[in-house]
């Protein structure tokens, strides 16, 4: 039976039982911020948010990740590898937009000949428990980007909030396995399932922000030298807020920190930094904000469409809400889709 219900009051029990077998990551509220952290009890978790400030990509792709440590000793360089942990994990409370971002990120980290084991091992060992969205924000536009507030892409088990309880829907075999670990869960009634369906329809209708990406990729192909880019970037200050808070942005830098003894780390990087394409010679093919903004838009809405078949935006709206100067990516996409090249 793939449909169960969980009383809200029973969440701490569920989490407690989960922690016996899995490492559990869930949203935790600290002052004004809600973010995904490792939890050891159900009382720590907070599910009353619209969406977390930082996206859950950091559970698979941390901002700082040690790849290996090294020491230059008498016998030469000694390297100690730091493989990704193999422990089983549950990542709970992920909105459908963010769950879909994992499916997109998978394409980058497992494309072609080179598989990124740091990301993939964590991904393989994690069960995703999604949290459907009853009240999308005005900045949400997931439905324009191939998603939905009750979307199941990337989700193993979907929690749907009814009154005082959650409907649990197993989406994959892994989700089913998780449900079966809790035989005390009650079967859902037809009424619960119908209520959830109505909430889903309400949520989809509530999404007012619509962004058409039809033809944008083809249009961008012809716009590389267009004067539009001169205006669009002007107010951007070139920080990393949009890229770091974006669920699908995954550019990174690799550095060695420490001379005779140290570590090789991977850290988040941002195409909005002037250093991003600064070459050893001193030449920079993207010398100003104009080229860097053009790059961001073309990467998200053109290059990845060619590489992976779809745009790298899930419509979560974080970049819109958090940009210090209110640069709105929806405006840019709208401008492009109606632009006379």
């Amino acid at each position, binding site marked *: 039976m793939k449909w169960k219900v969980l009383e809200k009051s029973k969440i701490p029990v569920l989490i407690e039982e989960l922690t016996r077998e899995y490492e559990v990551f869930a949203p935790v509220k600290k002052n004004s911020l809600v973010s995904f952290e490792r939890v050891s009890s159900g009382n720590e978790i907070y599910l009353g948010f619209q969406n977390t400030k930082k996206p859950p990509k950091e559970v698979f792709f941390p901002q*700082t990740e040690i790849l290996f440590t090294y020491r230059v000793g008498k016998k030469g360089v000694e390297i100690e590898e730091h493989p990704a942990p193999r422990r089983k994990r549950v990542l709970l409370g992920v909105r459908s937009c963010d769950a879909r971002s994992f499916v997109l990120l998978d394409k980058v980290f497992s494309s072609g000949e080179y598989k990124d084991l740091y990301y993939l091992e964590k991904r393989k060992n994690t069960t995703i428990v999604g949290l459907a969205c009853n009240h999308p924000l005005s900045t949400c536009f997931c439905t324009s980007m191939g998603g939905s507030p009750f979307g199941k892409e990337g989700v193993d088990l979907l929690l749907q909030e009814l009154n005082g309880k959650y409907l649990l829907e197993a989406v994959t075999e892994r989700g089913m396995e998780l449900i079966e670990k809790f035989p005390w869960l009650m079967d859902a009634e037809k009424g619960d399932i119908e209520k959830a369906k109505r909430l889903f329809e309400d949520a989809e209708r509530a999404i007012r922000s619509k962004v058409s990406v039809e033809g944008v990729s083809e249009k961008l192909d012809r716009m590389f030298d267009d004067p539009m880019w001169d205006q669009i970037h002007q107010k951007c200050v070139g920080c990393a807020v949009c890229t*770091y808070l974006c669920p699908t942005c995954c550019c990174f830098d690799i*550095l060695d920190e420490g001379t005779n003894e140290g570590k090789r780390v991977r850290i988040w990087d941002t195409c909005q930094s002037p250093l991003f394409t600064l070459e050893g010679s001193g030449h920079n093919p993207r010398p100003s904000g104009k080229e860097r903004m053009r790059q961001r838009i073309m990467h998200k809405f053109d290059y990845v469409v060619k590489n992976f078949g779809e745009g790298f935006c899930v419509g979560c709206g974080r970049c*819109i809400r958090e940009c210090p100067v209110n640069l709105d990516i929806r405006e840019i996409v709208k401008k492009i889709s109606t632009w006379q090249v």
Partner: protein
Amino acid sequence: MENLESSIRDIARKLLSDKKVDLIIGYEQGTLPLRTTPCFVDKVEDVQKLVWNASCDANLSKYLVDRKEKVGVVAKGCDARSIAVCIVEKQIPRENVVIIGVPCLGVIDRKKVEAKLGGKEVLESIVEGEQIRVKGEGFEFVLPKKDFLCDSCLTCRHRNPPIYDVFVGEKVPETPEVNEFAEVSDLESKSVEERWAHFKEELSKCIRCYACRNVCPLCYCKMCFVDQTMPAWFGKTNDLSDTMIYHIVRAFHVAGRCVDCGACSRACPMDINLRELVKKTEKIMKERYDYESGLSLEEVPPLGEFKMDDSQEFIK
């Protein structure tokens, strides 16, 4: 307020059509409630986009450095002061900028509004005199504006731009008696351990996005210490020690120059209180040199020169 808005548009229109400036930098309506966004106008007909309201929070002087054109910029008191600092530091040629000075009674801190609403989203907001009306799904509240102003505005003593080429409207009353260092004194009274614990906790939220640095008009260095290699001064990961070095050193780099416009704290996506460390350096400047930055185009800043009668009590 509406008069100020139409005055700003008139002034901008005249400056552009008289070719006194090539570009006007001001504010236009944002795409979200309680937000405006920087606006770059080079055509007379676009002057209509310019707005003036209590959400005009950005410090537009950020956009003045390294410009070849002549620019007219809308500037609040704090913005005009940071322009003055940049002029004195020879980053902006005085003759290249026309400062459109606007008296400001404070900008709204949308994070305070969001906190008050406990997570409910504002879908519409209207400022009605001294009140803010906020509407959302299933709610409508009227909030007293004075309780939702940015912290930097609560202790502002320069509501009228001290430096300007054109002054919009009438001067507003100042509040010179306000104690702008109450927060700092509070921190000073805590022990070293308490203070360190406080800063560690605040700064542990930092994701090294550099929004704070990038919105600051005084952070104009072509090669910022953050980005330097050979030598690299500190690490680029989000290790707490490296993160704290970044914030502490940046505080020292803006010490004696910061005008407390509050742009850094507003920009921070992780809601870190970034003003309080720098505010301490401002207090030292006031007490030691009786100095406030950005009020004069002639005075050499105390940290830019040495006078024979400067106190040297710290040299033992």
